[in-house]
């Protein structure tokens, strides 16, 4: 029920043509991912980690980079 940085990189690269994606790349605030990929990403995270993502959780602070997503998941599990 765990997710690694590599899993997220792979998942995102699978959906969108991304040359230089790392854990700090801004995903949404620079238009790299759109609203459709947003929904897919959330479904993937819920699937892989068992974490329930609420509407309130979906903010740039929690989702705008892989680094932030990993922090968010850790916090949610606590």
């Amino acid at each position, binding site marked *: 029920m765990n997710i690694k940085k590599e899993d997220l990189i792979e998942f995102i690269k*699978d959906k969108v043509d991304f040359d230089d994606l790392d854990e700090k790349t801004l995903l949404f605030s620079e238009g790299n991912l759109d*609203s459709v990929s947003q*929904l897919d990403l959330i479904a993937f995270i819920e699937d892989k980690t068992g974490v329930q993502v609420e509407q309130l959780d979906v903010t*740039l602070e929690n989702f705008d980079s892989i680094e932030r997503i990993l922090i968010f998941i850790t916090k949610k599990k606590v």
Partner: protein
Amino acid sequence: MFTIVFHDLLEKNLNERKDQVAIIDRYKSYTYDEIYLKVEKLASWMYKRGVRKGDRVGIYLYKSIEEIVAMFAASRIGAVFVNINYQWTVKQFDYVVSDCQIKFAVIDERRCKEILETNIPEYLQTILVKGKAPKEDRFFSWESLPPLLLPEKFACIDLDLAAILYTSGSTGRPKGVMLSSLNIIQGARSVAKYLNNNSTDRVISVLPFSFDYGLSQLTTMFLVGGSVLLQPIQMPSEIIRSIKEYNVTGFASVPPTWISIVRYLQETKANLPSLRYITNSGGKIPKNILKAMQNVFPEVAIYLMYGLTESFRSTYLPPEMFEKKMGSIGRSIPNAETFIINNNGDGICGPGEEGELVHRGVLVSKGYWGKEDATNEKIKVCPALKKIIGDEKVVYSGDIIKIDEDGYYWFVSRIDSLIKCTGFRISPQEVEEIVLMLENILEAVAFGEEDEAFGQIVHVVLSTIDDTDLDKEKILKHCKKNMPHYMIPKVIHQFNGKMPKTASGKIDVPMVVSMFKGKRQIEINY
């Protein structure tokens, strides 16, 4: 000052409110005067680079002040702006560039790298990069634009082409819908009228400007001297936060966004005191969400609307009728006339009947760029209306609409196979053509499956040469490179053997679709 051409939408505000905030982009605000000066500078340089009246200027940017400046700069010298959805891939950008022969393009650093790897056509003489430009011929950096002066005004009339907005049809690749200044400005007038827009309004712009619905957020506000807050991030939390922070009065969006916004508001119970109205177009909102909207948006006027790019907007439901006629698309907007034509095409439907909606009036666009046949198929004389309007051409919507006893319209279905995902039109044929580029794919049929969140999602049925197994990863990778995200098939089905054919030898698409629609992913031996 009178508003005649697109650029007038900006200029008309210089007398009364030049120091009023017009655009807010990422915490930075720009007054009408500041925008005007930026436009003059860019327009002068465009002119120096050889852009003349009627030339096409491509704008391939993430929602930003620069996107807006580029639109007005093109209009300032009588050129035609062509916004390309930032979600579109570089391959699609290339397609638009060659389809309408773009002479001058504005892009950002991120797309720049990929564009450099393509074969840039000779007629694309200038590529202006928002950010750092590579040391290549034809590439320039926006930051290093020299101060220049423009020659006096250019004589343009309202019928001159102002913009080309690309949209998918039910067949083939996207087509460029040609809009004159008259189309755009009259459209803004009709909308501002029924929304009761005035200079105290501030709309939040979430929808792309490449979408006519998105563009009208800008045009209506500039028409009445209001302001626009740019919000490119489609996260409910971010949207609600900015509505509150900037005292937004109006919010336009499409069904998938309304669904997530409503769910968000149900959870957070946020208060939005500044919000006066919200609008929906681009599809149907599910009934349970419509009902919930009344609760999460108390005292907000809700407008359900309907239209197609080829005629901008056709109908709206007045907010006071929202509860009584929940889900209806209403009746004709000001300055547009709609008729529902019966099956035979020779009569007008009355209450209780259903047929195809046709649109008449000044909002009828000039047709598709470079596609005379397709234009004549879409915009043509209606035999049923000859007695009333003679040979005046109307737009055939391709939608079946029902009229109720009170004369209100209700959307029934599409006549053709166009798929609509998150408000974007997707041509099944385009999906098929792109997938068929792959070597081992023999036949392809794409169709839409209903989905509450997305409207419809794309399914594709494929058969392979030699009946080998589908390499789904490879297919998706190929799609990713050639399609915007919303077009990428969500479900891939394999068809074993060859697909059934009609008498004329074409794939029996309805038969294939009926085998896979509404079912789980299964393999069929035929």
